[in-house]
């Protein structure tokens, strides 16, 4: 597995950026925070767009953050094939930025929900236990887009039976871009890297992204 240097974006209103930083380090990589106004990513290999409520999620989740200078740089990194991982609000930002297909709508129950969910890794069938916590996590894309994502192998994770509490179409929890170097998911792998807090299954997601460079 490649050892890589991660940059974790920090917007006003980010919540999970320190957790993401910590998780990158536990996964064996280097990591530092990148301020949203920085147009230059300072030579990092990959970027984590963390969870939280960037710019208060005013207007629409992720709608303002996508215009930040740092996100311009992230788009360039993605185009160059660098690993980009969007978690929760980061997933929403990547969808708003057009780096990932689809959109995240309000949960079917119209309530924020925080609970441990089981994910199935597409392809391997591996089961991961990871916390999810969001109010707008219902994955949506037009039917033909969903068909295409499935055909291209762009569905990365699905909620296991009984765990799709937000009403995501086709139980989709995470998707990649066509090239596979940009991944977004609603559950929080950075909160599943320590046996004391419940699970270490999230490390597998970080390892997958490090593998993009391998």
């Amino acid at each position: 597995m490649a050892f890589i240097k991660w940059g974790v974006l920090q917007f006003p209103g980010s919540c999970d950026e320190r957790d993401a930083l910590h998780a990158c380090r536990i996964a064996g990589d280097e990591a530092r925070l990148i301020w949203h106004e920085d147009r230059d990513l300072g030579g990092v290999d990959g970027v984590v767009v963390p969870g939280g409520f960037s710019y208060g999620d005013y207007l629409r989740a992720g709608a303002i953050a996508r215009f930040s200078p740092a996100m311009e740089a992230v788009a360039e990194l993605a185009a160059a094939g660098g690993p980009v991982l969007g978690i929760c609000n980061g997933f929403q930002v990547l969808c708003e930025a057009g780096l990932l297909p689809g959109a995240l709508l309000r949960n079917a129950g119209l309530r924020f929900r925080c609970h441990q969910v089981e994910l199935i890794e597409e392809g391997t069938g591996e089961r991961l236990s990871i916390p999810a916590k969001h109010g707008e996590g219902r994955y949506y894309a037009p039917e033909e887009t969903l068909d295409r994502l499935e055909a291209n192998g762009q569905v990365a994770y699905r909620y296991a039976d009984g765990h799709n509490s937000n009403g995501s179409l086709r139980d989709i929890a995470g998707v990649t871009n066509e090239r596979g170097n940009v991944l977004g998911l609603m559950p929080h792998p950075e909160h599943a890297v320590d046996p004391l807090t419940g699970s270490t299954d999230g490390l597998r997601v970080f390892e997958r992204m490090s593998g993009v460079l391998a």
Partner: protein
Amino acid sequence: MTVGTPKYRELGLTDSEYELIVEKLGREPNDVELAMFSLLWSEHCAYKHSRKLLRRLPTEGERVLMGPGENAGAVDVGNGYAVAFKVESHNHPSAVEPFEGAATGVGGILRDVFAIGARPIAILDSLRFGELDSVRSRHLLDGAVRGIGHYGNSIGVATVGGEIYFEEPYEHNCLVNAMCIGLAKSADMVRAAAAGVGNAVVLMGAATGRDGIGGASVLASAELGEGDETKRPTVQIGDPFEESKVLECCLELLEKGLLVSLQDLGAAGLTSSAGEMASAGGVGIDLDVARVPLREADMEPFEIMVSESQERMLGVVEPARVAEVRAICEKWQTGSAEIGVVTDTGAIRILRGEEVVGEMPVAALVDGCPLYDLEPAEPAGWIYGNRATLAAGVSAEDELLALLAAPNIASKRWAFEQYDSVVGSRTVRRPEQADAAVLQLPESGNAIAVSIDGNGRRVACDPYAGTIEAVLECAQNLACVGAEPLGLTNCLNFGNPEKPATAWQLDRAVSGLADVCTALGVPVVGGNVSLYNEGPDGPIYPTPVVSMVGEVPDPAQVAGSAFAAAGDAIALFGPFSPTLAGSELAKQRGELDVGLPQPDVSKVANACAQIRAAVRAGKLASAHDVSDGGLACALAESAIAGELGCHVDLQPLRERGCSPEEALFGEGSGGFLLSGERAVLEDLGAVLIGEVGGTTIEIAAGDRSLVLGLGGAASAWRSLDEKAEALAD
């Protein structure tokens, strides 16, 4: 305004208080001064009916770094780190507008904690509503839970625990008590005392608007009644995004050593924060309201001084560093304005440009409010109602199902899943995984546990014993996760203290709190008092909410409350002699009455110490304190959580003189329900009562023996999910 009523009375001051203000000023106060006095001399700010009683509480301890009087209490957790914590009420705003009231309750307590330089790491809340079959209660529950989630989730602080009770006396006046825990380097903590004559006073954060004007006096210091809708403008509106920026900004300013002192703006806004900073520092402050950034241009000086707009902080800064401070505020995209200066006059002077619009000695404004003695009188008997909801003569199985489904006992998953409990990577035990929340502190190499408790119904039965029980329950909860108490904070929620029965409840409860904390050696490091919690039907149950923070040396050695393995032995431990007095069963039967047995504090303390040692040694598979609904409910909870049945015999409790019903459903302090290896439990001196296993809960208790399927018990215990969701519509 009523013709002929003096303005000071409209603002909540009495005739004699007004005369005292005139005497201290040597003249009549103008409108600005009157507004400021009315707020700082309100019950909410001056504690005028409770301060004398609070002197009874023990506040010293070798781990105490900050005690009462600061924005939050703080205790030493080792390796140069401190844990700060405080609980505060936001009851009346929540009763008027539950979403914003609860949200800003969370916002306010967060600011108290980061004002001393601690990064907030956890939130807990203690909520009280009327019975769930009331439309109003469902509306308040839904709004308060969404409000807490909205604010805490958005700002990225984990909500790790709490409690909710539903009782008729809270129907009109719900309680929303929010608690925050923060972590700081001990050496970097700041106090709220203004210092350094000539230093600048800088207002940071949101602009000042007309929201929340008069909240502390009009809303928080009077009974609720008809026409409360007109008070809605006195409820503040919260913006967690703004607070998140102000929080990060203040922590960066403190880390860079740019602030001499820092204070949050809460109740009574600029008036109280400037007044308290000046009082604590023994200095004066000049403030120019013309320099305060406003949301509405035409605000009067008095409105600016009393506005309770949220997400604002007041800092004292050396003049040479003001530019640096403002640049960091700009980086975080939050406001800043140099609005005043520290003086040596001992007075608060309010200017509008060159014009002086108010001038008051700090001593009179902040510390001059008269303190009142209570005139307590014990009521003759039970002063609250009590509807019977459980038919007489039902089977023991039906009794257990009714108790498990009771909203007070049922799982609160519906509420706590609306809160982010994991952000921050510290949460070792999430809600309902153990009796207390456990947070790891890699910085100090250990963990803390925290529990918040306060069963108002039992305090109503006996304010002295009931308050002792609340503290003992906290201590037992901490023991179950291997934690040793470091300090306690509290929020005393009571009715109108000018009424003799409420005064008696308050007096007895504070005595109970003082006695139990002294006996346990647990210092009270802070607290909050919320009085006048009454509606048209009378006062709330007297509700001292207490929270204890304890130290866990090794977060890997923490027991859960769930049964862990079939074949484990089940044992009862501790000085537990349950009765039906004040119990959930007595409530459902309509049999509530005054009187509780007096708990034996030293015996419970000893039991806690033994459990703590056993948990730390990794000897127990599960540990759960016996609380609401008695031993039968504790057994069911451990069984449901572990998805494992059990069969037990309560004969040992029968031998302590308990009737079958008391053994099953009786309540009282001192009981621990344990599971683990038989020999280990025997060594501990626990009384073996049964074994884990199977798919049923089987309890032998003489003529009230019962057998209940695990599935049926679980659906009763999970019934709040559906009730709350269906009813929220």
